[in-house]
């Protein structure tokens, strides 16, 4: 399916924006989570540390062993100001899975009177501040590693693992709730642990929600903005498409679509289109011209053929007539034969010209132009034994790439032209020389030549020189020129040193 460029760009932008927002959000949530976890650990450690002096006092560390307990607070408050259990015993804390000590002792102690317990109160009160990573402390445990004495304040949730003997922060999951606890070491082998339910996940969850909404909002904004921007950026293209469509509707190849103010890319495209239009325009013009030339050619040919045809017809009528004398009879047949010869030459010429005008030789072979000239000279000499033909050829070559038959006709026509239009019994000079990787054919005669004003005209078909007789087809030089053009060369006419016409044909090696 074809989708619009703006839709594609928008889709691409949305993917990128979504990736950035989601990735960034994930990163923020993650980093915050880690930082909170670190902060929570630190807070718990701080709380546990604050409790150390009190716990040490309670467990009688640093006092004589025989005066126990007089400073032991008999009651602690939980975060709600309710009394919490205090349990001191010689035994280690109960193994995980076992229930916590029963709330309240057998002898409920009197309320805590003094400010010495403030750290403990603070601990159980928690910060109460939602910004704090730690919720309310659920319990505090302490262990005198030297005596095995231990102390539990608050409520240990069922299944909570036994107290770690190594200081540090740890996380525990009990019944789907995360707990965080910190163990710090006090004086004389004392370990104190503070534990609180995890509050971080909740904070992270809220942060996550924020990130999701931000992402969705960002995507919506990006969608609208990108659509608007691409629409606007692509407007010149749309304008260009409309203009191009108008060209094909109106079939007017003269229109050009590039204009000032187009963005670079569109201007480049418009430039290419303009170039294509120009080429198309000129191709069509050339084709029309060729068609016109072909029509004119056919008309000319028809006209030229009609003349000898008429003559043949008339003479055959005479020959058939019973009134004709034997002499008249013979003359009529002779003229008819002569005229058919003339028609023959015309048709030859027309075909040669048609071949020559068929375009450049595309797949020529390597031919020795000197050998071809040699052969054409031989034929001309045989045809016109009264002429003296002076030939100047290199011992071999020049070799050119081309159509041997066409090149033979070029030289043969040049020589024939010189023989017909030169001085009867006169002199012709022919030279073939290499030239710039191609070759040059020069033919001179000592006839009347062609005045400069006439030269252009005689190269056109059916145009004869001023002194031409009916024998010529009027195509010779036109054929030469057409063949020369086929071989990437041209025919030029001038005045010969011999006094007559100087014809020069250049042949390019293709």
């Amino acid at each position: 399916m074809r989708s619009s460029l703006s839709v594609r760009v928008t889709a691409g932008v949305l993917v990128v924006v979504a990736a950035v927002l989601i990735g960034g959000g994930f990163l923020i949530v993650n980093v915050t989570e880690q930082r909170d976890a670190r902060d929570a650990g630190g807070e718990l450690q701080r709380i546990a540390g604050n409790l150390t002096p009190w716990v040490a006092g309670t467990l009688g560390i640093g006092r004589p062993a025989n005066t126990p307990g007089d400073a032991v607070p008999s009651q602690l408050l939980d975060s709600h100001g309710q009394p919490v259990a205090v349990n001191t015993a010689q035994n280690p804390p109960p193994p995980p899975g076992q229930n916590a000590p029963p709330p309240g002792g057998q002898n409920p102690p009197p309320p805590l009177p003094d400010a010495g317990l403030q750290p403990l109160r603070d601990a159980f009160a928690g910060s109460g501040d939602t910004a704090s990573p730690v919720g309310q402390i659920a319990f505090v445990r302490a262990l005198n590693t030297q005596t095995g004495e231990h102390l539990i304040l608050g409520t240990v949730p069922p299944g909570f693992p036994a107290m770690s003997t190594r200081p540090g922060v740890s996380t525990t999951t009990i019944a789907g709730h995360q707990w965080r606890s910190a163990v710090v070491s006090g004086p004389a082998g004392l370990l104190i642990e503070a534990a609180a339910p995890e509050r971080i996940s909740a904070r992270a969850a809220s942060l996550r929600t924020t990130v999701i909404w931000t992402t969705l909002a960002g995507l919506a904004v990006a969608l609208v903005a990108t659509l608007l921007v691409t629409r606007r950026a692509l407007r010149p293209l749309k304008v260009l498409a409309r203009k191009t469509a108008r060209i094909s509707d109106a079939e007017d190849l003269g229109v050009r679509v590039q204009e000032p103010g187009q963005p670079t890319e569109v201007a480049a495209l418009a430039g290419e289109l303009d170039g294509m239009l120009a080429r198309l325009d000129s191709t069509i013009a050339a084709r029309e011209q060729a068609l016109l030339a072909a029509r004119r050619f056919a008309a000319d040919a028809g006209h030229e053929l009609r003349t000898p045809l008429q003559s043949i017809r008339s003479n055959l009528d005479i020959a058939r007539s019973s009134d004709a004398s034997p002499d008249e009879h013979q003359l009529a047949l002779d003229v008819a034969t002569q005229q058919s010869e003339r028609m023959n030459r015309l048709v030859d010429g027309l075909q040669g010209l048609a071949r020559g005008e068929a375009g450049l030789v595309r797949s020529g072979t390597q031919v020795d132009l000197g050998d071809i000239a040699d052969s054409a000279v031989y034929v001309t000499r045989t045809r016109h034994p009264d002429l003296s033909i002076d030939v100047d050829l290199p011992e071999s070559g020049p070799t050119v790439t081309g159509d041997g038959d066409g090149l033979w006709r070029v030289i043969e026509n040049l020589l024939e032209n010189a023989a017909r239009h030169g001085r009867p019994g006169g002199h012709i000079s022919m030279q073939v020389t290499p030239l710039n990787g191609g070759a040059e054919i020069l033919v001179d005669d000592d006839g009347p030549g062609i005045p400069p004003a006439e030269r252009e005209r005689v190269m056109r078909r059916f145009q004869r020189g001023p002194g031409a007789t009916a024998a010529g087809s009027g195509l010779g030089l036109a054929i030469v020129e057409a063949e020369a053009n086929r071989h990437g060369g041209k025919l030029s006419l001038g005045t010969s040193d011999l006094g007559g016409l100087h014809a020069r044909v250049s042949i390019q090696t293709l």
Partner: protein
Amino acid sequence: MTKARVLVVDDDEVIVDSLRRGLELEGYSVATAKDGTHALRVVEADQLDAVVLDVGLPDLNGRIVAARMRASGLATPILILSALDQVDDRIAGLEAGADDYLVKPFAMDELTARLRALLRRATYHSDHATSVNPPVRLGPLLVDSHAAVATWDGRDLGLTRRELALLETLARNPGVTLSRGRLLELVWGYDFVPDSRALDVFISYLRRKLDTAGAPRILVTVRGVGFVLRRP
């Protein structure tokens, strides 16, 4: 002497009829065929002395007809008729084993002059080939007209009849430059100069075939004079 029998092959009835009447006036016995298949049938059934073959036949190209005649071992001279623009067909016809070509339209005289010469040559060859023409050897080049084969270093050059005759004539006169007129006379029996490049075309075929067989450039144009086969 019995009348020489000539087969005229052309798809145009008017041309066939004109040529038949013209040739009969000149004393030939004429058979006609209107296409290639027909021509090949006549060739098989009839005793022919020469074939006048148009290249532009409706069914089989004249080149194919010539090639099949030669492939069946027929040595009868073949003269190809073509229009001016059928250069490729005409050249392919010569390559396939035809002896010469005429471009339409032509004068009756041109046709009869060629036929006369080709028939004379053919008769001369069949009468004297064995006794008069022993094989010629010039170094690696061997031309055996009796066996109708020419080799370079033992490799067959794959020459057509007329190419073989041309090479043999040149090889019998090694180092001697033969003029175009002399070659036309010796190889084709022509006492006139045809208004065409036929000789040049045959020379270029010979050169190409010698070149393909690995021979050096021994067949040379001597400009203004003719051609010479240098001793290898």
